[in-house]
C-alpha cells in the first residue's frame, strides 16, 4: 500500500502547485497530474470502471481547460499581491477551522470499521446475487443499472439539467455577433 501513499503525497504537491503557480498552462498540467493520479489510485484499489471514467473525463476537461487558456490569458494576475492584515486574519481563521476539522475527522475515522469490513451488509448481498438476479458479468453494471437503477436515473437527470443550464446561459438569442 506504500505506492498509494506516494501517489497521495504527489497529488497534494501537484494540487498545491496548481493553485499557486502563475503560468495558467502549468496550472492546468498540474491539475491533470492530480486527475491521472486519481485514475492510477482507482486501478491500485481494483476499481477499473471508475478508472476508465476518470481517465476519459480528465482528458476531456483538460482539453477544455487548455482551449480556454489558449484563447484567453496565460498569466494568473490574482496571486502574488502584498499580504495585508485581513489576509493574515483569514489565513489564521482558515488554519484554525482546518485544525478543528482535522481533529474531528481523525476521531470520526477511528470509529469506522476496517477497510473491507463494512458494517452494512448490503454490498455483500449484491455481490452474492449479482450474477443470478441481474445476469451481467460486470458487477458494477448490475448494481448501477439493476439494483440501484433509480439512483442512475437521478444522476442522468443531473447531467441533463446541467446541459440545459449551459445551453440556456450560452444561447445566442439576445446577443449580437462579436465580429461580422
Amino acid at each position, binding site marked *: 500500500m506504500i505506492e498509494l501513499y506516494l501517489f497521495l503525497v504527489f497529488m497534494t504537491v501537484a494540487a498545491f502547485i496548481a493553485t499557486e503557480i502563475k503560468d495558467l498552462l502549468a496550472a492546468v498540467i498540474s491539475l491533470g497530474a492530480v486527475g491521472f493520479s486519481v485514475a492510477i489510485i482507482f486501478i491500485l484499489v481494483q476499481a477499473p470502471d471508475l478508472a476508465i471514467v476518470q481517465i476519459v473525463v480528465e482528458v476531456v476537461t483538460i482539453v477544455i481547460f487548455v482551449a480556454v487558456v489558449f484563447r484567453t490569458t496565460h498569466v494568473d494576475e490574482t496571486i502574488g499581491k502584498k499580504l495585508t492584515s485581513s489576509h493574515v486574519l483569514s489565513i489564521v481563521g482558515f488554519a484554525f477551522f482546518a485544525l478543528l476539522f482535522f481533529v474531528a475527522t481523525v476521531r470520526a475515522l477511528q470509529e469506522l470499521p476496517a477497510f473491507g469490513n463494512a458494517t452494512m451488509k448490503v454490498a455483500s448481498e449484491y455481490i452474492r446475487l449479482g450474477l443470478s*438476479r441481474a*445476469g451481467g458479468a*460486470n458487477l458494477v453494471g448490475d448494481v448501477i443499472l439493476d439494483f440501484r437503477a433509480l439512483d442512475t436515473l437521478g444522476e442522468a437527470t443531473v447531467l441533463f439539467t446541467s446541459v440545459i443550464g449551459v*445551453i440556456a446561459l450560452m*444561447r445566442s438569442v*439576445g446577443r449580437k455577433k462579436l465580429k461580422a
Partner: protein
Amino acid sequence: MSLIVKTVTTIMIGFIFIYGAYIILHGHLTPGGGFAGGVIIAGAFILKILAFGSEAIDEKKSEMGSSIFESVGALLFIGVAIAGLVLAGTFFLNFLPKGIPLHLWSAGIIPFCNIAIGIKVGAGLFSIFLALAAVKYVMTD
C-alpha cells in the same frame, strides 16, 4: 492546427468512435459502461472540432442534432424503466430474460440502459462543448 494533426485526427476519429461503442455495448461484461463510452464518443467529436476548428462544422445543425440525441437518450432510459412498470409491474424491473452469463446477449435490460446512457452522455457532453466553444457573441447591454 497543422496538417499532421488534421491527418492523424482523420485516421483516428473512427477508431475512437468504435472504441466508445465497444465500451458501451460490452458494459455488462467488461469494465466500463454507458457513461465511460459516452464520454469517449463525445471526445471523438471534440477532437474533430479541435483539429479542424469550429468553422469545419455547421454549429446550429450540430447543436440541434446533439440536443435531439441527448433528449432521445434520456427518453430511452425512462422508456426502459416505464416498460418495466407497464409490462411487469415495477419501475426499472429487469423484466427481459437474463440469457447466458458472459454472452453479449445477456443481463436483460442492462445493455439497453447502457446504450441509452451512452447516447445521452455523449450527446450531452458534446453539446456542452459546442455551447462553450461556439461563443462568438457578446451581450447587447
